[in-house]
């Protein structure tokens, strides 16, 4: 089939939109099922996750531990529901497993465990662990002269952890242009808006000052995500930071931009309303 690049991107965007609806629905059902979770962040990072897994990363769903796969490190491990649902969308994880989220002895712990779930690269949950691990992955690829890339997704509040800035200096020093940090910039952390707790601004300038290339995108715009994530490194010899401006609770109007939905659990009625709103555009 002959397609122009524009049509190809358009088609991909439609697939991503459809997959993201399912991931958001699954994530909310999982949080509702376990009565635990972090739905606000699940919904803010969903479009980033599906873009990575379904359109950007080189990973074989039948062999997700192949040595030369691209790595994805979910540093904001508390948004495990979105990660598991995305792994299911990418057919790396059986969709039926999602119904066991946080059940006794389930593989799907509240925070991901790489020894239990194929496709999970790091055990995260405590914040500020992902970027150092990702820097190490990128260093390994450089040492081996391999072309696989490492993507890491961190929350914006998470950047208050000092370990990120240790890794930021290291990644610039070692010219890790095979490393891409995506910041889920939803401006809300557990207790309040990030700027009310520790002001993160000017966030882009911080990363530039640390020697990184910085791109700012709308984290819910597939075109912008595909373009930015598909054209890294932005500058040879520099790691890339994609600041993805997002809305916490994206897609469910009563959850959007509300700190209480950081780890709020929807009632039966709220879940039904949320799913109805999410799926209303399903053709």
């Amino acid at each position: 089939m002959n397609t122009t690049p524009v049509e190809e991107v358009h088609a991909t965007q439609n697939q991503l939109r459809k997959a993201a609806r399912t991931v958001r629905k699954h994530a909310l059902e999982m949080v509702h099922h376990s009565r635990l979770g972090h739905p606000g962040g699940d919904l803010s990072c969903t479009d980033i996750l599906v873009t990575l897994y379904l359109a950007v990363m080189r990973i074989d769903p039948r062999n997700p531990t192949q040595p030369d796969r691209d790595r994805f490190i979910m540093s904001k491990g508390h948004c495990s529901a979105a990660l598991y649902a995305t792994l299911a969308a990418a057919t790396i994880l059986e969709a039926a497993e999602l119904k066991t989220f946080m059940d006794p002895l389930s593989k799907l712990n509240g925070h991901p465990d790489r020894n239990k779930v194929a496709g999970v690269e790091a055990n995260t949950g405590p914040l500020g662990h992902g970027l150092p691990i990702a820097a190490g992955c990128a260093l390994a690829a450089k040492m081996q002269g391999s072309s696989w890339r490492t993507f890491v997704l961190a929350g914006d509040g998470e950047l208050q952890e000092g370990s990120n800035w240790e890794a930021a200096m290291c990644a610039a020093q070692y010219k890790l242009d095979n490393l891409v940090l995506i910041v889920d910039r939803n401006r809300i952390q557990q207790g309040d808006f990030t700027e009310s707790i520790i002001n993160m601004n000017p966030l882009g300038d911080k990363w530039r000052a640390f020697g990184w290339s910085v791109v700012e995108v709308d984290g819910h715009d597939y075109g912008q995500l595909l373009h930015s994530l598909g054209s890294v490194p932005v500058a040879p010899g520099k790691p890339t930071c994609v600041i993805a401006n997002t809305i916490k609770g994206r897609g469910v109007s009563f959850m959007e931009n509300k700190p209480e939905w950081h780890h709020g659990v929807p009632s039966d009625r709220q879940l039904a309303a949320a799913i109805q709103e999410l799926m209303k555009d399903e053709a």
Partner: protein
Amino acid sequence: MSAEAEEKAGVFDCRDTFAATLAEMAATDERICAVVNDSVGSTKLKAFSVRYPKRFVNVGIAEQNMVGASAGLANGGMIPFCCGASCFLTARSMEQVKVDLGYAKNNVKLCGMSSGMAYGELGPTHHSIEDLAWTRVIPNLMVVVPADPIETRTAMLWARDHVGPVFLRISRMPVPKILPEDFVFEPGKAIALRPGNDVALLANGILVSRALEAAGLLHAQGIEARVLNMSSMAPIDRAAVVAAAKETRGIVTIEEASVYGGLGGAVAEIVADEHPTRVKRLGVPGVFAPTGSVKFLLEHFGLTAQGIQSAALELLRTVAAG
């Protein structure tokens, strides 16, 4: 003391063996790499960094990133030896050690250099007497405290081949060779260095040679002390500890570490579980050490051959008094 002078005196800095062994392994295995925190000199890895510049990562003074990046290197198929002064390597990065290494089972070899009170006069900020208590409670993390250069080398070769995280506690204070040249380290196995059924001396690291010396002093008094090198702290040889509890009148534990949570703690847990007996724990007794050289501090805390001898005699008197 220079390496030559030490050899002449019959003692060896295990860091020299460490550096030589790492280079030897790197020559035949491209997965071997070193990660340091600006600790090139104190880890004695200058020659390694020149010979294998691509496999030498200096993350600067940043221990959380050092351990996290090592986990990432392992994820990418490398075998990183993550080396720094034990006081900073463990305390500063404990959550990364727990989560990124122990819980995630990443194939990283943590090398805590200049452990115990090696930095003597620099003070308690630079002492690492808590590291054994902290590391041995972490599941999947193997903890090894070599007693001499021979055990340092064989433990490193084992660590390379073991798939999973290991903490190697490498001392700085020169020690004599204790083990035969062909000794091969086995995890979870206490090494019987001297038989005896009156009292048992269980030691690790630089204090094993002193425990042996103490056994010689006790022998002169007609007391036969069993000496066990407890280099494998996790897993620990429970059977050897239980046998010592059953077959002798009491156990003295000897370590360059806090008496809480390390070898003394581990032995006390085992005998409490399986065969209660009298245990005297020698080490740093729950205090920050005063100012002084490592030689002074070991004497101050009774961690000498004479100190161990006295502790054993006191233990036997206590047992005899019922």
